[in-house]
């Protein structure tokens, strides 16, 4: 045995089939959202009806897994009813926690459903102990999902200064942009990431092939990347595109299309006091969820037992793509 406490493995699900896949592959909890604008992955064909979530919670609970409902976008004044309904439905269904980003919705949960466990979404952008403590003191937040911008020693310092659990991302998409504070998509499409729950809506994404087997990625009418033949593609978001400035041409001005993979840092994160390890990717397929979740299940169990896990399979999942430990390893990444 090792001195490490086994963390909760929190896995994504965009559909009921994905949720069952994640539970069967060893997830301790699964996070998901309702159809519509109430969560930050409002993609076509994705997410749960009330009935589907209800059935899914039963499936998970029967197998001792938890379900966390992400209601983590920002309702615009005049339409908070949709978000309140989503909270009420999630509570009625009996989810194990609701994940909230908007300060007004945090108040709603704390006042209307004081016994409901409340998690603070990464979309709330609480990146310092002071910000986190504000939410903990006012709204009885039990867990914070930390932004992917802190080093492991910084996470440890946050842990020591706050009175709630920490959930940290360990795998998947990564970005340095402060979440919940970005209107780049809205600037180009008229659809807001915060208010409509979608970054780079598929309805406004267009891939334009050229004669040389290259590809121009467009969001709205702006070219956000030009991919030449043989190059790999990335997510069609503004922050993952290539641009020109006076000093540098045709470069990833914000960030490389790169995957976060903290497999090797898992013991450090566990020692830093992280309660839950989060895998990103509610928009990904069942095939992805099956491989990533089972690989992390094995890795976490092995580390907790004091063994050295075989992580080659996890590394293979990002094969062909670039992977990084991002800001977690070194602040020089900023």
């Amino acid at each position, binding site marked *: 045995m090792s001195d490490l406490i086994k963390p909760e493995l929190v896995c994504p699900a965009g559909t009921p089939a994905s949720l069952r896949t994640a539970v069967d592959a060893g997830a301790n909890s699964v996070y998901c959202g309702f159809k519509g604008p109430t969560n930050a992955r409002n993609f076509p064909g994705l997410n749960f009806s009330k009935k589907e979530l209800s059935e899914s919670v039963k499936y998970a609970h029967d197998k001792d897994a938890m379900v966390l409902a992400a209601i983590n976008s*920002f309702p*615009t*004044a*005049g339409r*908070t009813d949709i978000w309140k309904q989503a909270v009420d439905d999630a509570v009625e269904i009996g989810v194990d926690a609701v994940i909230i980003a*908007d*300060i*007004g*919705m*945090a*108040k*709603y949960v704390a006042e209307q459903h004081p016994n409901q466990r409340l998690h603070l979404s990464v979309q*709330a952008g609480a*990146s*310092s102990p*002071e*910000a986190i403590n*504000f939410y903990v003191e*006012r709204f009885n937040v039990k867990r914070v999902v930390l*932004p992917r911008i*802190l080093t492991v020693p*910084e996470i440890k310092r946050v842990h020591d200064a706050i009175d709630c659990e920490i959930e940290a991302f360990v795998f998947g998409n990564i970005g*340095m942009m*402060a979440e*919940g*504070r*970005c*209107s*780049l998509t*809205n*600037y*180009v*499409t*008229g659809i*807001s990431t*915060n*208010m409509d729950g979608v970054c780079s809506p598929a309805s406004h994404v267009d891939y334009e092939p050229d004669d040389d087997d290259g590809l*121009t990625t467009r969001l*709205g009418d*702006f*070219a*956000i*990347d030009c991919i030449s033949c043989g190059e790999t593609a990335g997510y069609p978001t*503004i*922050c993952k595109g*290539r*641009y*020109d*400035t*006076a*000093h*540098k041409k045709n*470069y990833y*001005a*914000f*960030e490389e299309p790169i995957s976060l993979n903290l497999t090797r840092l898992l013991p450090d994160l566990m020692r830093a006091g992280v309660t839950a390890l989060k895998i990103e990717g509610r928009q990904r397929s069942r095939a992805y969820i099956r491989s990533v979740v089972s690989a992390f299940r094995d890795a976490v169990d092995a580390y907790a037992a004091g063994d050295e896990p075989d992580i080659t399979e996890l590394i293979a999942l990002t094969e062909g793509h670039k992977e990084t430990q991002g800001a977690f390893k070194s*602040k*020089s*990444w*900023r």
Partner: protein
Amino acid sequence: MSAQLTLGPVQYNWAPEDWRDFYFKIADETPVKTVFIGEVICSKRAPLYDNQLPDVVERLHDAGKHVIFSTLSEVTTDIDRRLVKRVAISEGFPIEANDVSALQQMAKGPHHIGPLMNCYNEEALEVYAANGATTICLNPEIPRDGLAALAQAAEPLGVELEVQVYGRVSLALSARCYHARAHNRTKDSCLFVCDEDPDGMRLDTLEGDKFLTVNGIQTQSHSVLNLIDCLDDLQSIGVNRFRISPQSVGTFTAIHAFNDVLNGRISPSEALKKMRDDCVDAPFSNGFYHQRPGYEWHDKVPAE
């Protein structure tokens, strides 16, 4: 309630003397009533202005301006946290919070909420009001209908709403410095390269379209927000505080143009012409207000 113009904090890295002279001129020559001041983008820049700050504040006070200290927007490192704390615990200075950590640190009492904080709905507004907010400057991406609903909720709570009506729009904040990145440096080793661009660094698409503006960890619009056409409409829905966000070129022309329109001395179209003649090299935009892509310009509310 009578309309008033406010001046948002300078968001770029200006030479300390230019920064000082800008505020002296604001004090001496402009009708703005409230001036927000302080480093909101980068904690590394803040000490650059320490020597100028006392003179600037004194000059603004002498001119009868209400001076409010804005806090840092993206707070992560210990340096960031110390900066916020220094501003938040200063007694006797009104504060504009741009991050939740400032709310946690400041003493109880009246304060202001800045546009880099999220206040999208009535419930959020209630949280801030109960905590002591007297004015809230809203995120520029909130469309007219959202502003109207918020204004309705703000009135009984005694909170005044403010919106940005001029200047480049803040679209994103980051943990990473994109100015440093363009110069193959990191945030820690930046050597303050952002001082080369007093209105930010232009970012173009690979097709050559002028697209965004990089200001350290902040990404702004390339276009310059201009709601001169919407002032009547804004007042009719209950918004009476109008924020000008400073650029190195055209800010004084904009202040006078907006003031003249508010006082009925010139028409919005005359004002627009004056501002077009003296502005950073970028088009005006008002798309967000009309719930359209933010970069667009609409002469009037577009038909759906």
